[in-house]
Protein backbone atom coordinates (compact mmCIF):
# COMPACT_ATOMS: atom_id res chain seq x y z
CA UNK A 1 0.00 0.00 0.00
CA UNK A 2 1.49 3.37 -1.00
CA UNK A 3 2.49 5.86 1.68
CA UNK A 4 0.37 8.99 1.83
CA UNK A 5 1.95 12.43 1.57
CA UNK A 6 -0.42 15.32 2.13
CA UNK A 7 0.78 18.74 0.99
CA UNK A 8 -1.09 21.84 2.12
CA UNK A 9 -0.57 24.83 -0.17
CA UNK A 10 -0.02 25.06 -3.92
CA UNK A 11 2.62 27.80 -3.87
CA UNK A 12 6.35 27.38 -4.42
CA UNK A 13 6.90 25.13 -1.37
CA UNK A 14 3.98 22.80 -2.11
CA UNK A 15 4.81 22.53 -5.79
CA UNK A 16 8.52 21.83 -5.27
CA UNK A 17 7.56 19.12 -2.75
CA UNK A 18 5.15 17.31 -5.06
CA UNK A 19 7.43 17.60 -8.09
CA UNK A 20 10.59 16.40 -6.36
CA UNK A 21 8.82 13.56 -4.53
CA UNK A 22 7.05 12.36 -7.67
CA UNK A 23 10.34 12.40 -9.59
CA UNK A 24 11.80 10.02 -7.01
CA UNK A 25 8.79 7.83 -6.19
CA UNK A 26 6.03 6.50 -8.45
CA UNK A 27 2.31 6.37 -7.57
CA UNK A 28 2.77 2.76 -6.40
CA UNK A 29 5.17 3.95 -3.69
CA UNK A 30 3.69 7.30 -2.69
CA UNK A 31 0.22 8.73 -3.05
CA UNK A 32 0.58 12.52 -3.13
CA UNK A 33 -2.33 14.88 -2.50
CA UNK A 34 -2.07 18.63 -2.88
CA UNK A 35 -4.70 20.83 -1.22
CA UNK A 36 -5.15 24.51 -2.02
CA UNK A 37 -8.01 26.95 -1.55
CA UNK A 38 -7.50 28.36 -5.03
CA UNK A 39 -7.50 26.55 -8.35
CA UNK A 40 -4.57 28.50 -9.78
CA UNK A 41 -1.01 29.06 -8.61
CA UNK A 42 0.63 32.41 -9.20
CA UNK A 43 4.13 33.78 -9.66
CA UNK A 44 3.84 36.46 -7.00
CA UNK A 45 6.91 38.55 -7.98
CA UNK A 46 5.09 39.41 -11.21
CA UNK A 47 2.22 41.15 -9.37
CA UNK A 48 4.46 44.23 -9.75
CA UNK A 49 4.25 43.82 -13.51
CA UNK A 50 0.48 43.31 -13.33
CA UNK A 51 0.22 46.57 -11.36
CA UNK A 52 2.07 48.51 -14.06
CA UNK A 53 0.18 46.84 -16.91
CA UNK A 54 3.21 44.88 -18.12
CA UNK A 55 1.49 41.54 -17.50
CA UNK A 56 -2.12 40.38 -17.51
CA UNK A 57 -3.26 38.28 -14.51
CA UNK A 58 -3.62 35.14 -16.63
CA UNK A 59 0.01 35.52 -17.75
CA UNK A 60 1.32 35.13 -14.20
CA UNK A 61 -0.71 32.12 -13.09
CA UNK A 62 -1.57 28.58 -14.20
CA UNK A 63 -4.22 26.05 -13.09
CA UNK A 64 -3.11 23.71 -10.32
CA UNK A 65 -4.93 20.92 -12.17
CA UNK A 66 -1.69 20.46 -14.12
CA UNK A 67 -0.20 18.52 -11.16
CA UNK A 68 -2.56 15.69 -12.09
CA UNK A 69 -0.44 15.02 -15.16
CA UNK A 70 2.35 13.97 -12.78
CA UNK A 71 0.07 11.58 -10.91
CA UNK A 72 -0.59 13.99 -8.04
CA UNK A 73 -4.12 14.38 -6.66
CA UNK A 74 -5.32 17.96 -6.50
CA UNK A 75 -8.11 18.98 -4.14
CA UNK A 76 -9.47 22.51 -4.26
CA UNK A 77 -10.45 23.09 -0.66
CA UNK A 78 -9.79 25.39 2.24
CA UNK A 79 -7.90 23.86 5.16
CA UNK A 80 -9.95 24.42 8.31
CA UNK A 81 -7.99 22.54 11.00
CA UNK A 82 -4.73 20.64 11.44
CA UNK A 83 -4.82 17.92 14.09
CA UNK A 84 -1.24 16.67 13.96
CA UNK A 85 -1.58 14.61 17.14
CA UNK A 86 -4.14 12.42 15.34
CA UNK A 87 -2.67 12.77 11.84
CA UNK A 88 -5.79 14.48 10.51
CA UNK A 89 -6.40 17.57 8.41
CA UNK A 90 -9.89 18.97 8.08
CA UNK A 91 -10.83 20.82 4.91
CA UNK A 92 -13.97 22.11 3.22
CA UNK A 93 -13.73 19.00 0.99
CA UNK A 94 -13.55 16.56 3.89
CA UNK A 95 -10.99 15.05 6.22
CA UNK A 96 -7.57 13.73 5.18
CA UNK A 97 -5.08 11.48 6.93
CA UNK A 98 -1.41 11.10 6.07
CA UNK A 99 1.92 9.42 6.71
CA UNK A 100 3.77 12.67 6.08
CA UNK A 101 2.26 16.15 6.17
CA UNK A 102 3.90 19.15 4.53
CA UNK A 103 2.51 22.49 5.65
CA UNK A 104 3.30 25.11 3.01
CA UNK A 105 0.30 27.37 3.51
CA UNK A 106 2.27 30.61 3.17
CA UNK A 107 1.35 33.89 4.80
CA UNK A 108 -1.98 35.68 4.56
CA UNK A 109 -2.48 39.41 4.26
CA UNK A 110 -4.93 41.50 6.23
CA UNK A 111 -6.76 43.92 3.93
CA UNK A 112 -6.28 47.64 4.67
CA UNK A 113 -8.41 48.80 1.73
CA UNK A 114 -5.38 50.34 -0.04
CA UNK A 115 -3.91 49.09 -3.33
CA UNK A 116 -0.66 47.12 -3.17
CA UNK A 117 1.22 44.42 -5.05
CA UNK A 118 1.14 41.65 -2.43
CA UNK A 119 -2.11 40.10 -3.75
CA UNK A 120 -3.49 39.95 -7.26
CA UNK A 121 -6.74 41.92 -6.84
CA UNK A 122 -5.20 44.97 -5.13
CA UNK A 123 -2.40 44.95 -7.75
CA UNK A 124 -4.99 45.71 -10.41
CA UNK A 125 -5.90 48.92 -8.56
CA UNK A 126 -2.35 50.33 -8.51
CA UNK A 127 -2.41 51.59 -12.11
CA UNK A 128 -5.78 53.28 -11.54
CA UNK A 129 -4.45 55.07 -8.45
CA UNK A 130 -1.29 56.19 -10.27
CA UNK A 131 -3.26 57.50 -13.23
CA UNK A 132 -5.23 59.80 -10.90
CA UNK A 133 -2.13 61.44 -9.43
CA UNK A 134 -0.47 63.72 -11.94
CA UNK A 135 1.06 65.84 -9.23
CA UNK A 136 1.35 65.45 -5.48
CA UNK A 137 2.63 62.83 -3.11
CA UNK A 138 2.69 59.04 -3.56
CA UNK A 139 3.51 56.99 -0.47
CA UNK A 140 4.63 53.37 -0.41
CA UNK A 141 4.01 52.31 3.17
CA UNK A 142 4.93 49.03 4.83
CA UNK A 143 2.47 48.42 7.64
CA UNK A 144 4.61 46.01 9.67
CA UNK A 145 7.23 43.26 9.70
CA UNK A 146 7.32 40.51 8.54
CA UNK A 147 5.99 40.66 5.00
CA UNK A 148 6.60 38.70 1.80
CA UNK A 149 9.67 39.56 -0.30
CA UNK A 150 11.54 42.12 1.83
CA UNK A 151 13.03 44.13 -1.09
CA UNK A 152 9.69 44.47 -2.94
CA UNK A 153 8.49 47.81 -1.43
CA UNK A 154 11.70 49.43 -2.68
CA UNK A 155 11.10 47.81 -6.07
CA UNK A 156 7.57 49.25 -6.09
CA UNK A 157 8.96 52.71 -5.26
CA UNK A 158 11.50 52.48 -8.06
CA UNK A 159 8.89 51.36 -10.59
CA UNK A 160 6.67 54.25 -9.45
CA UNK A 161 9.64 56.58 -9.97
CA UNK A 162 10.20 55.15 -13.44
CA UNK A 163 6.48 55.41 -14.28
CA UNK A 164 6.42 59.16 -13.51
CA UNK A 165 9.77 59.67 -15.21
CA UNK A 166 8.49 58.24 -18.49
CA UNK A 167 5.26 60.26 -18.18
CA UNK A 168 7.35 63.43 -17.80
CA UNK A 169 5.77 64.09 -14.40
CA UNK A 170 8.54 63.05 -12.04
CA UNK A 171 9.31 66.63 -10.96
CA UNK A 172 5.65 67.10 -9.99
CA UNK A 173 5.34 63.96 -7.87
CA UNK A 174 7.07 63.28 -4.58
CA UNK A 175 7.64 59.60 -3.74
CA UNK A 176 8.13 58.45 -0.15
CA UNK A 177 8.72 55.02 1.34
CA UNK A 178 7.53 54.57 4.93
CA UNK A 179 9.14 51.46 6.39
CA UNK A 180 9.60 49.73 9.77
CA UNK A 181 13.39 49.50 9.23
CA UNK A 182 15.37 52.62 10.11
CA UNK A 183 17.43 52.38 6.91
CA UNK A 184 16.49 50.72 3.60
CA UNK A 185 17.87 47.16 3.25
CA UNK A 186 19.17 47.32 6.83
CA UNK A 187 18.22 43.64 7.22
CA UNK A 188 20.79 42.80 4.51
CA UNK A 189 23.65 44.44 6.44
CA UNK A 190 25.18 47.92 6.83
CA UNK A 191 26.81 47.94 3.40
CA UNK A 192 23.47 47.16 1.72
CA UNK A 193 21.73 49.85 3.81
CA UNK A 194 24.30 52.47 2.89
CA UNK A 195 24.28 51.54 -0.76
CA UNK A 196 20.47 51.48 -1.04
CA UNK A 197 20.15 54.79 0.86
CA UNK A 198 22.45 56.35 -1.74
CA UNK A 199 20.52 54.78 -4.61
CA UNK A 200 17.16 56.08 -3.35
CA UNK A 201 18.66 59.52 -2.79
CA UNK A 202 19.98 59.49 -6.35
CA UNK A 203 16.45 58.77 -7.63
CA UNK A 204 14.91 61.42 -5.38
CA UNK A 205 12.88 58.89 -3.36
CA UNK A 206 12.42 59.88 0.27
CA UNK A 207 12.76 57.13 2.90
CA UNK A 208 11.10 57.41 6.31
CA UNK A 209 12.53 54.69 8.54
CA UNK A 210 10.32 54.31 11.60
CA UNK A 211 12.56 51.91 13.52
CA UNK A 212 9.65 49.87 14.96
CA UNK A 213 8.37 46.46 13.82
CA UNK A 214 4.99 48.10 13.19
CA UNK A 215 5.51 51.30 11.23
CA UNK A 216 1.94 52.52 10.70
CA UNK A 217 -0.32 53.41 13.58
CA UNK A 218 -3.33 54.63 11.62
CA UNK A 219 -4.40 55.04 8.03
CA UNK A 220 -6.77 57.76 6.88
CA UNK A 221 -8.06 58.52 3.40
CA UNK A 222 -5.20 60.94 2.67
CA UNK A 223 -2.99 60.74 5.71
CA UNK A 224 -1.12 58.13 7.70
CA UNK A 225 0.39 58.30 11.14
CA UNK A 226 3.53 56.36 11.96
CA UNK A 227 3.96 54.59 15.29
CA UNK A 228 6.44 57.32 16.22
CA UNK A 229 3.77 60.00 15.72
CA UNK A 230 4.82 61.43 12.36
CA UNK A 231 1.87 62.40 10.17
CA UNK A 232 2.33 62.02 6.41
CA UNK A 233 -0.20 63.35 3.92
CA UNK A 234 -0.53 61.69 0.52
CA UNK A 235 -2.51 61.78 -2.71
CA UNK A 236 -2.12 58.05 -3.29
CA UNK A 237 -0.76 55.34 -1.04
CA UNK A 238 0.23 51.76 -1.67
CA UNK A 239 0.23 49.97 1.64
CA UNK A 240 1.98 46.64 2.15
CA UNK A 241 -0.64 44.97 4.38
CA UNK A 242 0.08 43.23 7.68
CA UNK A 243 0.86 39.52 7.22
CA UNK A 244 -0.22 36.64 9.44
CA UNK A 245 -0.03 32.85 9.47
CA UNK A 246 -3.23 31.13 8.25
CA UNK A 247 -5.74 30.34 11.04
CA UNK A 248 -5.43 26.51 10.79
CA UNK A 249 -1.72 26.90 11.63
CA UNK A 250 -2.30 29.52 14.34
CA UNK A 251 -4.99 27.35 15.94
CA UNK A 252 -2.82 24.21 15.89
CA UNK A 253 0.10 23.22 18.07
CA UNK A 254 2.48 23.77 15.13
CA UNK A 255 2.69 27.51 15.84
CA UNK A 256 5.15 29.47 17.94
CA UNK A 257 5.37 33.29 18.04
CA UNK A 258 2.50 33.49 15.56
CA UNK A 259 4.17 31.36 12.85
CA UNK A 260 4.83 27.66 12.21
CA UNK A 261 7.87 26.46 14.13
CA UNK A 262 10.49 24.30 12.37
CA UNK A 263 12.57 22.06 14.64
CA UNK A 264 16.14 23.06 13.86
CA UNK A 265 16.40 25.08 10.63
CA UNK A 266 20.04 26.04 11.31
CA UNK A 267 20.88 22.37 10.73
CA UNK A 268 18.44 21.79 7.88
CA UNK A 269 15.70 20.17 9.97
CA UNK A 270 12.34 21.61 8.92
CA UNK A 271 10.23 19.05 10.76
CA UNK A 272 7.70 20.66 13.04
CA UNK A 273 9.14 21.29 16.50
CA UNK A 274 6.61 18.83 17.93
CA UNK A 275 5.82 16.18 15.31
CA UNK A 276 8.23 13.94 13.39
CA UNK A 277 5.82 13.42 10.49
CA UNK A 278 5.00 17.10 9.88
CA UNK A 279 7.20 19.50 7.92
CA UNK A 280 6.68 23.26 8.00
CA UNK A 281 8.25 25.12 5.08
CA UNK A 282 8.26 28.46 3.28
CA UNK A 283 6.65 31.73 4.35
CA UNK A 284 4.52 30.15 7.08
CA UNK A 285 7.73 29.21 8.94
CA UNK A 286 10.15 31.91 7.68
CA UNK A 287 9.95 34.29 10.70
CA UNK A 288 10.95 31.41 12.99
CA UNK A 289 13.97 30.39 10.84
CA UNK A 290 14.57 33.45 10.78
CA UNK A 291 14.73 34.50 7.13
CA UNK A 292 12.67 36.69 4.82
CA UNK A 293 9.59 35.30 3.13
CA UNK A 294 10.67 34.42 -0.41
CA UNK A 295 10.40 31.41 -2.71
CA UNK A 296 14.08 31.61 -3.60
CA UNK A 297 15.12 31.09 0.04
CA UNK A 298 12.76 28.13 0.40
CA UNK A 299 14.12 26.69 -2.86
CA UNK A 300 17.65 26.66 -1.41
CA UNK A 301 16.79 24.41 1.54
CA UNK A 302 14.23 22.16 -0.18
CA UNK A 303 16.79 19.46 -1.14
CA UNK A 304 17.21 18.81 2.60
CA UNK A 305 13.46 18.69 3.20
CA UNK A 306 12.94 16.26 0.31
CA UNK A 307 15.84 14.06 1.45
CA UNK A 308 14.36 13.92 4.95
CA UNK A 309 10.86 13.08 3.71
CA UNK A 310 12.25 10.36 1.43
CA UNK A 311 14.26 8.91 4.30
CA UNK A 312 11.19 9.04 6.59
CA UNK A 313 9.12 7.14 4.04
CA UNK A 314 11.56 4.52 2.79
CA UNK A 315 14.71 4.82 4.87
CA UNK A 316 16.68 5.73 1.76
CA UNK A 317 19.43 8.27 1.72
CA UNK A 318 19.47 10.42 -1.40
CA UNK A 319 22.52 12.49 -0.54
CA UNK A 320 22.38 16.06 0.60
CA UNK A 321 24.28 19.04 -0.73
CA UNK A 322 26.10 21.15 1.88
CA UNK A 323 23.40 22.88 3.90
CA UNK A 324 23.01 26.51 2.85
CA UNK A 325 20.13 28.91 3.08
CA UNK A 326 20.55 31.39 0.27
CA UNK A 327 18.45 33.67 -1.86
CA UNK A 328 19.11 35.04 -5.33
CA UNK A 329 16.90 37.51 -7.07
CA UNK A 330 16.65 40.15 -9.75
CA UNK A 331 15.05 43.40 -8.63
CA UNK A 332 13.37 45.58 -11.20
CA UNK A 333 14.65 49.08 -10.63
CA UNK A 334 12.75 50.60 -13.56
CA UNK A 335 13.79 49.35 -17.01
CA UNK A 336 16.89 47.94 -15.37
CA UNK A 337 17.29 44.75 -13.42
CA UNK A 338 19.57 44.44 -10.44
CA UNK A 339 20.86 41.01 -9.52
CA UNK A 340 21.34 40.32 -5.85
CA UNK A 341 22.21 37.29 -3.74
CA UNK A 342 22.42 36.65 -0.02
CA UNK A 343 23.86 33.77 1.94
CA UNK A 344 21.73 33.56 5.10
CA UNK A 345 23.50 30.46 6.47
CA UNK A 346 25.88 32.22 8.92
CA UNK A 347 23.01 34.49 10.04
CA UNK A 348 20.61 31.56 10.66
CA UNK A 349 23.38 29.69 12.49
CA UNK A 350 23.86 32.86 14.63
CA UNK A 351 27.48 33.18 13.52
CA UNK A 352 26.95 36.63 12.00
CA UNK A 353 24.61 39.53 12.82
CA UNK A 354 23.40 39.79 9.23
CA UNK A 355 23.54 37.76 5.99
CA UNK A 356 26.35 37.95 3.43
CA UNK A 357 24.79 39.89 0.57
CA UNK A 358 26.04 41.03 -2.78
CA UNK A 359 24.39 43.45 -5.19
CA UNK A 360 25.45 43.76 -8.80
CA UNK A 361 25.20 47.02 -10.73
CA UNK A 362 21.86 47.48 -12.56
CA UNK A 363 21.73 46.33 -16.18
CA UNK A 364 18.90 45.92 -18.71
CA UNK A 365 19.97 42.30 -19.30
CA UNK A 366 19.26 41.43 -15.67
CA UNK A 367 15.67 42.45 -16.18
CA UNK A 368 15.45 39.90 -19.00
CA UNK A 369 16.69 37.32 -16.50
CA UNK A 370 13.85 38.28 -14.15
CA UNK A 371 11.29 37.88 -16.92
CA UNK A 372 12.83 34.61 -18.05
CA UNK A 373 12.64 33.17 -14.55
CA UNK A 374 8.89 33.82 -14.47
CA UNK A 375 8.48 31.50 -17.50
CA UNK A 376 11.04 28.97 -16.27
CA UNK A 377 9.22 28.83 -12.90
CA UNK A 378 5.96 27.50 -14.32
CA UNK A 379 7.68 25.19 -16.77
CA UNK A 380 9.86 23.78 -13.99
CA UNK A 381 7.05 23.10 -11.54
CA UNK A 382 4.05 22.38 -13.74
CA UNK A 383 5.42 21.78 -17.24
CA UNK A 384 3.44 24.65 -18.78
CA UNK A 385 4.13 28.27 -19.66
CA UNK A 386 1.17 30.68 -19.47
Amino acid at each position, binding site marked *: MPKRVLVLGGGTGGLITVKELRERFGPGDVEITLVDAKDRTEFRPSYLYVAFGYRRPEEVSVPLEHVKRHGVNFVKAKVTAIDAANRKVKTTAGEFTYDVLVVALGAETVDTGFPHTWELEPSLKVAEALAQVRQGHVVIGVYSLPYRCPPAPIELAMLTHFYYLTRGLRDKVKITVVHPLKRPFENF*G*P*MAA*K*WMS*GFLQQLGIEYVGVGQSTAIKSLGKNELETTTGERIKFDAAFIVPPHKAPDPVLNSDLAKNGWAAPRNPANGDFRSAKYDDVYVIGDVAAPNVPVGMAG*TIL*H*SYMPWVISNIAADLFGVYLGKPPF*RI*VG*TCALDVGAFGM*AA*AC*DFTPFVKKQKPYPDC*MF*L*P*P*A*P*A*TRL*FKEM*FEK*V*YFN*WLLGVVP
Partner: protein
Amino acid sequence: MSEVVTIPKADYERLLQEVQALRREVEELSSLLLPVKIVLERLPHLMADIQVFKVAAPLISMLSIMDSADLNALGAAMQGGVVCASKALRQVAEDGAPRVGLFGLLSAMRDPEVQKAMGLMVTLLKAMGSCMEENLKQVSEK
Protein backbone atom coordinates in the same frame (compact mmCIF):
# COMPACT_ATOMS: atom_id res chain seq x y z
CA MET B 1 -19.17 9.31 -37.20
CA SER B 2 -15.51 9.34 -38.27
CA GLU B 3 -14.73 9.78 -41.95
CA VAL B 4 -12.92 6.91 -43.75
CA VAL B 5 -10.35 7.85 -46.40
CA THR B 6 -9.18 5.26 -48.90
CA ILE B 7 -5.71 5.57 -50.43
CA PRO B 8 -3.74 3.26 -52.73
CA LYS B 9 -1.61 0.64 -50.94
CA ALA B 10 1.63 2.03 -52.46
CA ASP B 11 0.86 5.48 -51.08
CA TYR B 12 0.02 3.98 -47.72
CA GLU B 13 3.33 2.09 -47.59
CA ARG B 14 5.29 5.19 -48.66
CA LEU B 15 3.53 7.17 -45.94
CA LEU B 16 4.35 4.45 -43.42
CA GLN B 17 8.04 4.52 -44.41
CA GLU B 18 8.12 8.31 -44.09
CA VAL B 19 6.58 8.13 -40.64
CA GLN B 20 9.12 5.48 -39.60
CA ALA B 21 12.00 7.60 -40.95
CA LEU B 22 10.65 10.65 -39.16
CA ARG B 23 10.37 8.67 -35.95
CA ARG B 24 13.99 7.52 -36.26
CA GLU B 25 15.11 11.12 -36.80
CA VAL B 26 13.10 12.36 -33.81
CA GLU B 27 14.62 9.60 -31.65
CA GLU B 28 18.15 10.47 -32.82
CA LEU B 29 17.53 14.17 -32.22
CA SER B 30 16.01 13.43 -28.85
CA SER B 31 19.09 11.38 -27.80
CA LEU B 32 21.36 14.13 -29.09
CA LEU B 33 19.50 16.82 -27.17
CA LEU B 34 19.15 14.80 -23.97
CA PRO B 35 22.11 16.51 -22.22
CA VAL B 36 20.63 19.92 -23.14
CA LYS B 37 17.25 18.78 -21.78
CA ILE B 38 18.85 17.74 -18.49
CA VAL B 39 20.57 21.13 -18.17
CA LEU B 40 17.32 22.96 -19.01
CA GLU B 41 15.43 20.93 -16.42
CA ARG B 42 18.04 21.88 -13.85
CA LEU B 43 18.02 25.54 -14.95
CA PRO B 44 15.90 26.79 -12.02
CA HIS B 45 18.35 25.18 -9.59
CA LEU B 46 21.30 26.74 -11.40
CA MET B 47 19.60 30.15 -11.43
CA ALA B 48 19.11 29.93 -7.66
CA ASP B 49 22.61 28.63 -6.93
CA ILE B 50 24.80 31.17 -5.15
CA GLN B 51 28.01 29.62 -6.51
CA VAL B 52 26.73 30.01 -10.06
CA PHE B 53 25.70 33.56 -9.14
CA LYS B 54 29.22 34.39 -7.96
CA VAL B 55 30.79 33.00 -11.14
CA ALA B 56 28.30 34.87 -13.33
CA ALA B 57 28.61 38.08 -11.26
CA PRO B 58 31.69 39.54 -13.01
CA LEU B 59 30.07 39.01 -16.40
CA ILE B 60 26.74 40.53 -15.30
CA SER B 61 28.57 43.44 -13.65
CA MET B 62 30.57 44.10 -16.79
CA LEU B 63 27.35 45.03 -18.61
CA SER B 64 27.00 48.05 -16.38
CA ILE B 65 30.70 48.72 -15.77
CA MET B 66 31.55 48.83 -19.46
CA ASP B 67 28.67 51.24 -20.00
CA SER B 68 30.67 53.94 -18.23
CA ALA B 69 34.03 52.97 -19.72
CA ASP B 70 35.94 55.29 -22.07
CA LEU B 71 36.44 52.61 -24.68
CA ASN B 72 38.67 54.81 -26.86
CA ALA B 73 41.08 55.51 -23.99
CA LEU B 74 40.91 51.94 -22.71
CA GLY B 75 41.39 50.57 -26.22
CA ALA B 76 44.39 52.84 -26.86
CA ALA B 77 45.87 51.84 -23.48
CA MET B 78 45.34 48.16 -24.17
CA GLN B 79 46.79 48.44 -27.65
CA GLY B 80 49.64 50.60 -26.37
CA GLY B 81 50.25 48.21 -23.51
CA VAL B 82 50.52 45.23 -25.83
CA VAL B 83 52.65 47.04 -28.46
CA CYS B 84 54.93 48.74 -25.92
CA ALA B 85 55.32 45.68 -23.72
CA SER B 86 56.16 43.55 -26.78
CA LYS B 87 58.76 46.08 -27.89
CA ALA B 88 60.33 46.31 -24.42
CA LEU B 89 60.35 42.54 -23.95
CA ARG B 90 61.95 42.04 -27.35
CA GLN B 91 64.66 44.58 -26.45
CA VAL B 92 65.40 42.67 -23.21
CA ALA B 93 65.35 39.37 -25.09
CA GLU B 94 67.91 40.65 -27.61
CA ASP B 95 70.19 42.82 -25.48
CA GLY B 96 69.49 41.65 -21.93
CA ALA B 97 69.15 44.05 -19.00
CA PRO B 98 72.04 45.58 -17.04
CA ARG B 99 72.40 45.21 -13.28
CA VAL B 100 71.34 48.45 -11.64
CA GLY B 101 72.35 49.48 -8.14
CA LEU B 102 71.49 52.60 -6.16
CA PHE B 103 73.85 54.81 -8.18
CA GLY B 104 72.64 53.25 -11.42
CA LEU B 105 69.10 54.07 -10.35
CA LEU B 106 70.02 57.69 -9.66
CA SER B 107 71.76 57.87 -12.99
CA ALA B 108 68.71 56.35 -14.76
CA MET B 109 66.54 59.03 -13.20
CA ARG B 110 68.33 61.57 -15.34
CA ASP B 111 67.34 59.69 -18.49
CA PRO B 112 64.46 61.60 -20.20
CA GLU B 113 62.81 58.29 -21.20
CA VAL B 114 62.81 57.04 -17.60
CA GLN B 115 61.56 60.45 -16.43
CA LYS B 116 58.70 60.18 -18.94
CA ALA B 117 57.78 56.70 -17.68
CA MET B 118 57.89 57.84 -14.05
CA GLY B 119 55.75 60.86 -14.92
CA LEU B 120 53.19 58.58 -16.53
CA MET B 121 53.07 56.30 -13.51
CA VAL B 122 52.79 59.18 -11.03
CA THR B 123 50.03 60.85 -13.08
CA LEU B 124 48.08 57.56 -13.30
CA LEU B 125 48.49 56.83 -9.58
CA LYS B 126 47.44 60.36 -8.66
CA ALA B 127 44.27 60.14 -10.73
CA MET B 128 43.48 56.57 -9.63
CA GLY B 129 44.01 57.12 -5.90
CA SER B 130 41.10 59.37 -5.00
CA CYS B 131 38.82 57.80 -7.64
CA MET B 132 39.43 54.26 -6.32
CA GLU B 133 38.95 55.41 -2.73
CA GLU B 134 35.62 56.98 -3.63
CA ASN B 135 34.43 53.77 -5.34
CA LEU B 136 35.59 51.50 -2.53
CA LYS B 137 33.75 53.67 0.01
CA GLN B 138 30.52 52.41 -1.56
CA VAL B 139 31.11 48.91 -0.17
CA SER B 140 32.40 50.01 3.23
CA GLU B 141 30.28 48.79 6.14
CA LYS B 142 30.82 52.05 8.06
